[in-house]
């Protein structure tokens, strides 16, 4: 039975990684799960300099999901390399580093820094964070800007590039195509959905940032459709995510067109979710007599 997949030149031993921002920098969960069983570890978004993040409250639970407006708090490239890289470097599985910037040049500079670091598995370009004023989502909703970011990073590194798509667009196909044409090796579909919740006792929004990103099972069917549409538009592989809780969810994403999947919000309530999913994919393949997990990708019958 083959579970390994390729994302550009990155080989994952199985198609399951974790979603950026839901798994810290790996080390925090190392006492609860064996990270070396994962396909890859994906870390929280990093830009060049440290970022304090948004005021609190930063998250709110909603029916079948949650809102977050963390504001990409992070240690910056140097802080990350000093504090978190020594641990990640020693893992047997690759690390995918989620990066962002407020200008095209900053994206490229961060990509260059991680290229020079050596040993990084892939870079995931976050052009789709709904929770910051500049940068983030603006690059992910305009095909021209998106192409500039991807092309600049492409020129800055030979590492596999994964472009993380915004769901907040009328049609994902032109953006997916723009990322592919500019040299992206893969797409990550999808980031969180802009959303809001209000406390009716105080009449205050539940997030200090007023709005945030919706994640968790509530977004799964919308994310499946986005993966399906993106897969029809491009030839590069897709990492599917959005509300994955179990192997059935993961397989559904793969059938829609994903080569690999990422587990996000589910880590918060069940840190072992990704390991359960890997086991569940094996069971499904055995039951359906599938010898290569890649057969599942885009196998939806339409």
């Amino acid at each position, binding site marked *: 039975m083959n579970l390994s997949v390729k994302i550009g030149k990155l080989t994952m031993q199985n198609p399951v990684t974790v979603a950026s921002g839901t798994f810290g920098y790996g080390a925090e969960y190392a006492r609860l799960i064996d990270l070396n069983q994962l396909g890859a570890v994906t870390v*929280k978004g990093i830009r060049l300099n440290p970022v304090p993040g948004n005021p609190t*409250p930063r998250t*709110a639970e909603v029916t079948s999901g949650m809102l*977050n407006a963390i504001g990409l*708090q992070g240690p910056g490239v140097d802080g990350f390399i000093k504090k978190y890289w020594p641990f990640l470097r020693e893992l047997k599985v690759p690390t995918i580093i989620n990066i962002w910037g407020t200008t095209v040049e900053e994206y490229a500079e961060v990509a260059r820094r991680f290229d020079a670091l050596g040993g990084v598995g892939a870079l995931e370009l976050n052009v789709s964070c709904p929770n910051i004023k500049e940068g983030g989502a603006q690059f992910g909703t305009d095909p021209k800007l998106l192409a500039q970011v991807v092309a600049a990073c492409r020129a800055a590194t030979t590492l596999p590039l994964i472009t993380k798509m915004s769901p907040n667009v009328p049609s994902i196909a032109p953006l997916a195509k723009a990322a592919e044409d500019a040299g992206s090796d893969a797409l990550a579909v999808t980031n969180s959905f802009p959303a809001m919740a209000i406390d009716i006792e105080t009449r205050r929004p539940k997030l200090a940032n007023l709005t945030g990103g919706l994640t968790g099972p509530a977004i799964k069917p919308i994310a499946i459709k986005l993966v399906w549409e993106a897969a029809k538009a491009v030839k590069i592989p897709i990492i599917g995510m959005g509300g994955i809780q179990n192997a059935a969810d993961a397989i559904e994403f793969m059938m829609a067109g994903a080569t690999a999947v990422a587990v996000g919000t589910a880590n918060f*309530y069940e840190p072992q979710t990704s390991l359960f999913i890997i086991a569940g994919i094996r069971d499904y393949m055995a039951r359906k007599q599938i010898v290569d997990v890649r057969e599942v990708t885009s196998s939806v019958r339409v």
Partner: protein
Amino acid sequence: MLEQTVTIVSNERDTDQYFRLVVRAPQITPLIQPGQFAHVRILPLKDALLRRPFSIFQVAGDTFSILYKNVGKGTEVLSRMRAGEELSVIAPLGHGFTVPAAGGETPLLVAGGYGMAAMFLLAQRSPQTGIVFVGGRRRVDILCEKDFAAIGWEVRVATEDGSHGEKGLVTQPLLAELKRSAVGRKLFACGPTPMLEAVGKIAEDIAVACELSMDEHMCCGVGTCLTCVIKVKAGDGWEYQRTCTEGPVFDSRSIAWEVAK
């Protein structure tokens, strides 16, 4: 820190909307330090995803307990669970209280409502007994008086409606006691944030050491999501630190109350 499925030994009403829940968790109990918490997944709670954090109240043999108030969706479902049913817990979590050294400071504990839950292990493991100041709105909000008395601690009560103990806020009897003598004493507090701020202010004015257990919303409970941050003094400014990891217990002098607003 371990993640385990644990069995409920008992889950009984304490007063009013407060409940005591005991679970059997032999691998977790030896690891528990005063002021740490358990992140609880209430398995029958189906329409909400996240775990709920609760201070670890008491440890007895291979069991530990929490003392919780029914305030919402999760605690409501929890309050209807019975002995024999299962919960998933990640515990013990967080940085707890500094247990006083033998012959060291005399601990003065300050608690509001379910904040009492965070205090019991500290009192039990402290080499010298002290005084616990407990406040609440009404008589039913005053928890665990008997538990503290049973381990030889003096309990001073204040209620806002005067139905039990002194009428007013818990900071009144605390301040009166510190004015009598603050030397060789240290404060430890857990309760609503305004109470913690008031206790922190008293500690600063009187120049007495003080540790506060902060209450912030949490998702992961283990340091990954950055939900639970508070502003902590750093150099000339401040930085965000995680209540679930660097906290929940912080030195009161380190909290940047001014910028927090």
